């Protein structure tokens, strides 16, 4: 006995599965991502809309989860909001890249303090100095790069 095949049902199941899998990818986590694309690419990053690119495209994305915005002093689980971490992040993020087909590799240097560790790091004098110097270097670099030619 042969069971009749119904293509519409299979198509519906496939679309539902793809939708579930897409939702699975939308997680609310701290993440830093880079992408280099050449050709046709349809992709969707967490908490972003669908991105379609044709040709060459290059992206760097930082995704930091935001706390739920409510005015109550207590959070949902009954703990005092003043003593819970909204989500603190301290970090330096250095990316350098060139043509991936030539000898110009992607180089990533990342240093991050997250959550309660970021709060503690912000109060630690040695880490304050480190992050202060890193911020100073970035500010100096940005000021130099935006300066018109001939003024240097």
């Amino acid at each position, binding site marked *: 006995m042969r069971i009749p095949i119904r293509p519409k049902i299979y198509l519906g199941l496939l679309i539902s599965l*793809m939708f579930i*899998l*897409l939702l*699975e*990818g939308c*997680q609310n*986590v*701290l*993440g*830093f*991502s*880079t*992408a*280099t*694309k*050449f*050709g*046709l*690419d*349809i*992709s*969707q*990053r967490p908490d972003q809309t669908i991105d379609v690119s044709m040709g060459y495209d290059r992206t760097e994305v930082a995704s930091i989860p935001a706390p739920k915005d409510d005015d109550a002093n207590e959070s949902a689980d009954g703990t005092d909001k003043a003593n819970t*971490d909204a989500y603190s992040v301290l*970090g330096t993020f250095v990316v350098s890249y060139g043509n*991936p087909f030539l*000898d110009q*590799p*992607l*180089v*990533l*240097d*990342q*240093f*991050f*303090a*997250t*959550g*309660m*560790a970021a709060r*503690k*790091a912000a*109060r*630690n004098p*040695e*880490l304050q100095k*480190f992050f202060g110097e890193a911020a100073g270097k970035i500010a100096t670099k940005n000021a130099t790069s935006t300066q018109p030619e001939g003024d240097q």
Partner: protein
Amino acid sequence: MMQSRNPLMLGCLGLLIAPFFSACAFRSGNTEQYIGPVLFRYAMPPNNNAYVSQIVRLGPSAEAGISWGVAMGMSERITVAPVIAATRQKEQTANSSHWLMPLSFSQTPAAGEWNFSLLYLCVEREPGSFFLSRTITGVEIVFGEEANALTVGFAHRTLFTPPDNAISSLHFENARPLESQATVWLDVPEHGNLPDSLLKEITK
């Protein structure tokens, strides 16, 4: 007589040839399993400052588990898991990473050099990786935690997810992935001296 034997012979032949042309990956938690041919290399402490794995698959391939997808072409996946550094409150955590090829002659592949697994490769790692680099040259459709994408051509994606309530450091160079450095400090003192490894990291 020939007609009745042909399907069986073709089936056996197909089973013999299939591993040469397709590789299937199943990843769940800290375990990865690969069926079919894969080219891979890895590095781990004490020779390296991170747990690094690089796996290359050629031809048609499929994956399931934390991400689901199929690909045709050359796909490369690099993961970096950190070393948990010692702090004043905690000793350095003894991590582990096991690479096994139970169906091969040399069941334990060598670290730091390219290895080839023809039939089955099993990787067990602890802790989980916090950096991922995926490259596809060809066609790929993938859905899941690692990526949601349809690619025709070339795509190289990286994803760094630092752990909560910790300080994380990562150095990654695409041309030399095995030389990656990744460390996590879980207990950071608010006042007083920082751990030596963290001081070294911020002053280099």
